[in-house]
């Protein structure tokens, strides 16, 4: 039977998927390691060693992307974890309005980033935008959300959280729902209250869900492009440039080698942070 199984489950079935994956993803990724070290026009190339990397890391208008990308990823994933967990706990309750709120929170996940970006750019208009008009009604002078170099990045990060929180929330809900009722009953017998329930049952037992949210949103944050490009195009100045938006700018300017070096740097950054994070979070899960 084993022989038969070997013949039945032939790796030929992998071939079509393998070819597409190799040609359109793996091959470009491998080639990027080489082309990042060239001066490149797509038809012609000249090997220049690590020059592109040096430029990318020393030019202030380029290396600002690192700091911004890290800030963006940490802020968005941190907020998604905290808010997602709280919303998840709230929406796992038996309140009547849960269904409605869950739908409202989740719907933006399905919308296009461009559409969301446009709507919020308008709402964040410094003088006419609805957000600042509401704030001024409360006696607060709202900031220039997207025009102030100090807060523009955070403004976009908040919109990112608005759009992506539904995903984090449903993952937490799935995690919390999978906790058996017995645990709560046992806790209630011992006289535990809602806070104990959260701290001693929900928090540790929704750990797999939390790990998933951390990894997904952190990687997503590092790779972000659409929203920042719609809302600020990296501006004002370079204050909201992310690595991904710099890659696009260099590509537009025709610096293909430099753009590819940016890609390799992003690749290294994402791998260097995501793989260990993945291993660490999975290990912690086992310890519990």
């Amino acid at each position: 039977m084993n022989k038969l199984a070997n013949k039945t489950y032939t790796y030929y079935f992998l071939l079509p998927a393998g070819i597409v994956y190799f040609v359109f993803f793996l091959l470009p990724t491998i080639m990027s390691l080489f082309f990042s070290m060239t001066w490149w026009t797509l038809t012609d190339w000249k090997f220049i060693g690590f020059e592109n990397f040096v430029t990318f890391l020393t030019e202030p208008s380029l290396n600002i992307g690192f700091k911004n990308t890290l800030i963006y990823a940490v802020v968005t994933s941190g907020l998604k974890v905290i808010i997602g967990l709280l919303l998840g706990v709230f929406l796992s309750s038996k309140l009547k309005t849960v269904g409605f709120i869950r739908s409202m929170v989740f719907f933006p996940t399905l919308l296009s980033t461009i559409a969301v970006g446009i709507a919020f750019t308008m709402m964040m208009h410094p003088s006419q935008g609805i957000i600042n008009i509401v704030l001024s009604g409360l006696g607060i002078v709202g900031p220039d959300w997207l025009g102030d170099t100090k807060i523009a990045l955070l403004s976009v990060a908040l919109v990112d959280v608005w759009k992506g929180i539904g995903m984090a929330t449903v993952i937490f809900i799935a995690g919390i729902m999978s906790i058996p009722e017995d645990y709560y009953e046992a806790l209630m017998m011992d006289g535990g209250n809602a806070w104990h329930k959260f701290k001693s049952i929900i928090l540790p037992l929704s750990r797999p869900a939390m790990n998933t949210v951390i990894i997904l949103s952190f990687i997503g944050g590092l790779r972000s492009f659409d929203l920042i490009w719609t809302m600020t195009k990296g501006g004002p100045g370079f204050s909201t440039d992310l690595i991904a938006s710099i890659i696009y700018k260099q590509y537009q300017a025709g610096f293909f080698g430099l753009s590819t070096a940016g890609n390799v740097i992003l690749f290294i950054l994402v791998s260097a942070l995501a793989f260990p994070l993945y291993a660490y979070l999975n290990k912690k899960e086992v310890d519990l």
Partner: protein
Amino acid sequence: MSKAVLSNPNSTPIVNPKSRVKTGKKLWKLFVETFSVLATLGIFGIPFYFVIINAFKNSQESSLLNMDWPSSFHLIENMKEVISARDGMIIRAFFNSVMITGISIVLLIILGAAAGYVLQRKVTKATPFFNFLILAGLIIPPAVVPTIWVLQEIGLFKTMPGIVFVEVALNLPFTILLYRGFMVTIPKSLDEAALMDGCGRFRLFINIILPLLKPVSATVIVLTAVSVYNDFVNPLYFFPGAENATLQLTLYNFMSMYITKWNLLFTNVLLISIPPLILFIIFNKKIVAGMTAGSIK
């Protein structure tokens, strides 16, 4: 009655303390429910309302960017103008988007199911390697210009097959993960029985396994539809040119074109959000289940 009890607790000697606690809890629950709905409406409802109401206005009123009720309704007019802009650009974009999404879905189902099936059924020394490739595909950001170079070398740059293959390649890892996960629930004895009956290995997959994978295929359809339809960055790089517009690219270009006619921009945003809305209404539960299924294990 119960409300009065709570507002004036001193005058309620008849009600025993236990039921007073109950009333308090009920009121608290009502408060939480009301407050949470209002907060949701404020945070998530207002942006929707803002876009919709401004799509109804004329350009003068929409330029104020407020949420006042429009003095007259121009939605149909706005739609006509958006659709006819740049010689019906949006219609061509709609056609392109639907084609790219549709073909990607079909390819992903076939390639993903075949790969997930074998990867679950056959565990060999190569399995960790395949797992690594899947993980890599989920984590690594695609290399942009080298992909353009590859597409150009094989003559698919700026073509629909080119963008479709890129979308398929990028969505394959997660799709395979979904299929592989579901294959666990299909007993191996079924395969054996079919083989005993003289079923060939390709017929086994196509006639027996594939139909059983329907629930995952439905998930793949919904997830791919959302991700490919909404994709902006890949068409931006690999499918440029006026002829090739997709809906997301068109919307992005309209942003600079309608700098003074925000009502048209909002109408465009509204039009583009209709397909996801329909999908959401029909498949709400399925989407949530699918998105969490693959990720939580």
